[in-house]
């Protein structure tokens, strides 16, 4: 119940730490996204009004960079590499396996329980381990569809235990 307040309080702090400086918009958005895991519309409007810039400008910056997201993401973000090396090593099969396992339809990236988000990236720079995926910050190399399913099961189990 205090969670909302502490997050919001943190946003106010972030803006203050950056001295209400509109040229620091990008660092502010980065820090805010770290708090919320995405950029909520109301928070963007709040940032715009605090920095005295138009919400349209903030929206423009937030939608320009791939790093920022305006949609809530899952607690676990699975980034499957689809760069040349991984692609050759059948990363497409991995992506399908994840989609099947999580029941994601075309155009969907996040599970309804907000536990997982699936993203594809162009290269993780670990081509020797292709195909590669990232589960949050953790790198997994030479992944097979079976391994991916096990990995996801393990996370689900761990979460259920909580």
């Amino acid at each position, binding site marked *: *119940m205090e969670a*909302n*307040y502490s997050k919001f309080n943190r946003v106010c702090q972030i803006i203050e730490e950056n001295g209400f400086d509109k040229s620091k918009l990008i660092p502010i958005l980065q820090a805010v996204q770290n708090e919320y895991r995405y950029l909520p519309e*109301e928070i963007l409007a709040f940032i715009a*009004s605090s920095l005295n810039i138009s*919400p349209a400008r903030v929206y423009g910056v937030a939608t*320009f*960079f791939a790093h920022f997201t305006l949609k809530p993401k899952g607690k676990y973000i699975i980034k499957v590499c689809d760069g040349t090396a991984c692609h050759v090593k059948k990363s497409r099969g991995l992506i399908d396996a994840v989609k099947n396992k999580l029941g994601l339809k075309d155009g969907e990236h996040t599970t309804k329980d907000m536990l997982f988000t699936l993203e594809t990236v162009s290269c993780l720079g670990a081509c020797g381990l292709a195909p590669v995926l990232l589960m949050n910050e953790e790198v997994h190399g030479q992944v097979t569809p079976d391994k991916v399913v096990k990995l996801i099961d393990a996370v689900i189990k761990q979460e259920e235990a909580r």
Partner: protein
Amino acid sequence: MEKQLIINNSRVYFSGEKNILEVIRKHNIELPTFCYHSELSAYGSCRLCMVEVDGRGILPACSTPPENGMRIKTNNEEIREMRKIIVELLLANHDKDCTTCRKSETCQLQSLSRKLGVDTIRFKNVAKKEEKDLSTHALVRDPGKCVLCGDCVRFCEEIQSIGAIDFANRGPNSQVCPSFAKELDDSECVYCGQCARVCPTGAITPKSEVSYVWKALSDPKKKVVVAIAPAVRAAIGESFGIVGENGTESAGKIATALRSMGFDKVFDISFAADMTIVEEANEFVERLGNDKHMPQFTSCCPAWVKFVEQYYPDMIKNLSSCRSPQGMFGSIAKKIMPQALETPKEDLVVVAIMPCTAKKFEARRPELSKDGIQDIDYVLTTQEFARMIEESGLRFADLNPSAFDMPMGFKTGGGVIFGNSGGVTEAVLRNVIQAKDGIDETEEFSFVRGEDGVREAKVNVGGKELKIAIVYGLKNARKIVRDIKADKSRYDFVEVMACPGGCIGGAGQPVYKDISIRKARTKVLYENDKTLELHKPQDNPYVQKMYEQFLGKPGSREAHELLHSKHSNKKRLQEGPLTIYTPKNEKKLNINVCFGTSCMLKGSQKLLKQILDFVETKDFKDNVGIDASFCFEKCSKGPVVRIGEQTLEKCSIEAAELAIMEEIKKIQK
């Protein structure tokens, strides 16, 4: 020594030009551009103004400053091919419904592709069908026509300081849109429409009401009356190839055209402008006397009024309570015309022809309706009116002038110059200050005229020196308002028009690219003033008659009912509120803390924490919800907190605790 450079083998001198584009154009060579406007910052996105500079290769002329001794070629095989490719690429990603496009006749994409000899598009068509944004009454956004030049974005930000639209997304998904890709109606847009004026294509255009007006005209039951704004006469001719036509002549031709279309009465908004001056000057003298709500802001520009309502709610009281001339015309027409035309009020249709897109928004303000009937039913822009003339098959240039109908067709010069920046001020001065004998009334206060966006003037009234500011462009206005709020400057009267040059530069006027055309319009109105018999609004005999018949005297109760209106806070941001605290059980009490910029600076953050702590210690915490909102628009009275049904201004934690306990008691009962 004068600096020189060589353009296409001929020697050219330059001095203060910002970039070589200006030097080249001054030398009568037309360089194609989409994204260059001399009034905006150089953006360099369209790459059409590429020129070859000896030793430096091909450069964009708009963002290259001139240097002594430069050798420039504006046109060679390579440059021609580049420009062609650029236009072809744009066309490959463009909704090419040119025959039905509003902008067709003034579309720069069309004219450039013709001028550059583009006769085939070598690239695959990738244009997607995109939804139009029809949310506002003033403007239509058609993203499929956008070439991403950013002219609209820069005008909105740099000249109007609003930023209602901006670039979003990236690469092939780039687009210009309001924040969060919402509709324009949900944004801070004040509907000045200058984005539509600078748009080189049909991506933003004024919304047309022509079909409704035709329908009313062809309905035998309806009586349709119409009035034209001062600025319309200064520009309508441009649509038919005549620039700077004499105002009396062109107004006369307009009257003829309107009658032949079937309008029952043809009036002049300048009459209502005379009335506005009489009321507004009276209000000014009153305020000056009791030193209340000074400086007085003019209220005839609807974009400016919305600007104050949404950004400076604490200055709303400074706005003159007078309706705009359009508003006054509407209420008077709806009052006297049913009887004059022997028709029930429901069958009377009032149309205004305006230079302005924001007037379409103004006409729909609830304050300008009575018993659910709008005072002004339809607003046509000058552009739409020109289209109606064409649709009627009239040859505007060859029409014989005729007179307006009485009583609302008679005007003084004061009501005509209303369309120029400085015109309202000048007309007010003509009313407030007794003219000296033998002085030309049209010249006595001409010192308030000018082409600059911010002008100041001092005049002496009864031994008191009045300070006046005359502003166009809302960014200029914002600066003036900020200075007033910060006590940096003091004025008695502030005239603001949102569009460059005033109403004559409105977005509903025929599209102009050259500033000389705007200047010609300004001149038309000042010259028109000279040719009229009367120059002081209060001398208008028909205005005097209106007061005798049913208004009493300026500022009377009757005048207030018909000629004044209220302005109120407009919420700028639609987002929020943000849930800070969700109760476990049923929410019985809602607490809402304002987190707008002003309240935040006044300590709403600390207050929120204290309220949270207080609620936490009470045993009813499971029935209380706490939200943060982005602005209650009571900025001068922050921090503002809403507790149940109470709104606490300048709220302290003690006051908040007291109110919470009171509300809880009510609930527990």
